[in-house]
């Protein structure tokens, strides 16, 4: 059976590449520190020597729109083009092509259906920055095949935090049952408190620093009970209109299981809190 070797959950910041590669005299003061933190985080993946990446993200109205909007979708294609014109324009993220793994996509799709998750699928999926940001940060050589999974964190009604956690558990099961000797890493991105297109956007901190601190502690401890007791759609909206990206962190905790994280780091940036978590499956920790 395949072996899950690491679970990574982080924020995705589309300006990371631009912020750390522009001429040094134009960079923001935190850029060198940000780069060091990202490179340290990258190492938490590299040391596990993965063969395949299961990548969880959320399309930002690039391919998916309100005429046809799945809650959960899995990519099943030999390759995935990436980065849309308006992302290149806004964030300066270049084009990519990611290798796929159709066999694993097909297996996971069936397995998740068998676990009662009615996944939509796509045989022609163009990936956006929710999955390219972590390629840039934790696997910039882009040398591994991926199985992309998209969640809807954007177009209400959204699934509940509990459902996201259960989906994470189901994804873990599907990885564990994949008949292969491959080493698999699961990588997902989302947000802590975040405001976009509203009155609290682009402040000195994220819109709700208290939530950010609390969320980091919950994830550090793997405390899913506290998350489910305290986080719902209303509380997330109060913390910032795009805070629903936190649902992907909840999902990733489901993949890892309710365990303390093995690596935790964060960085207070101008309008958002960056956070980086890695879990190693406990049975191999020794």
């Amino acid at each position, binding site marked *: 059976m395949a072996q899950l070797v690491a679970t990574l959950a982080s924020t995705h910041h589309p300006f990371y590449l631009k912020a750390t590669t522009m001429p040094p005299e134009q960079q923001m003061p935190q850029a060198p520190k940000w780069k060091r933190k990202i490179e340290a985080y990258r190492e938490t993946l590299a040391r596990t020597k993965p063969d395949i990446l299961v990548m969880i993200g959320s399309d930002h109205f690039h391919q998916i729109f*309100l005429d046809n909007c799945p809650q959960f979708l899995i990519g099943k294609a030999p390759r995935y083009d990436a980065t849309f014109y308006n992302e290149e324009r806004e964030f300066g993220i270049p084009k990519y092509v990611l290798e796929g793994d159709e066999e694993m996509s097909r297996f996971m799709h069936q397995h998740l259906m068998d676990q009662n998750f009615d996944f939509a699928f796509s045989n022609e999926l163009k990936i956006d920055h929710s999955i390219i940001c972590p390629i840039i940060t934790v696997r910039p050589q882009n040398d591994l095949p991926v199985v992309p999974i998209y969640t809807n964190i954007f177009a209400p009604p959204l699934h509940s935090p509990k459902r996201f956690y259960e989906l994470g558990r189901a994804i873990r099961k599907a990885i564990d049952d994949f008949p292969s000797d491959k080493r698999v890493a699961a990588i997902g991105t989302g947000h802590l408190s975040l405001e976009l297109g509203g*009155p609290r*956007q682009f402040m000195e901190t994220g819109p709700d620093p208290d939530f950010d601190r609390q969320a980091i502690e919950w994830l550090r401890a793997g405390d899913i009970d506290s998350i489910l007791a305290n986080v719902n759609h209303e509380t997330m909206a109060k913390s910032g209109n795009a805070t629903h990206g936190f649902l992907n962190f909840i999902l990733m905790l489901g993949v890892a299981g309710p365990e303390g994280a093995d690596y935790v780091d964060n960085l207070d940036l101008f309008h958002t809190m960056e956070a980086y978590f890695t879990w190693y499956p406990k049975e191999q920790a020794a």
Partner: protein
Amino acid sequence: MSKYYVNKFLFTVDRDPDYLKRYIEDPKSFVATWEQSIGPKLNDAERSTVHSLTDAERQALIDHDYVALFEMGAHFFLNLTMYIGIYDEPYLAKSGPLSFQREFAAKLQHWRDKDYPSVET
């Protein structure tokens, strides 16, 4: 009111460099063109007859009025990325990084402690 159709406008224009350019240069005539021949497209072959813009929605799009669009419940991400696409560069040149984004936020301060208009469609 058709939040969906406003969002469709933002979605189809933001993603297309040619539409974006026309929307910047002559919003009034571009919005008219969009309503006539771009908005009704279901795909390359089929046309949809279901949606239309209200007068207020049309005016807000012509005026690049992102405050009105926010208040109508246009999706926050589309509303932001559309007008960043138009105003980020000129504001950057004139007033520095994030100046457009901060002005956008400032104009919405009256919503700060309220429940925002729903973006559900």
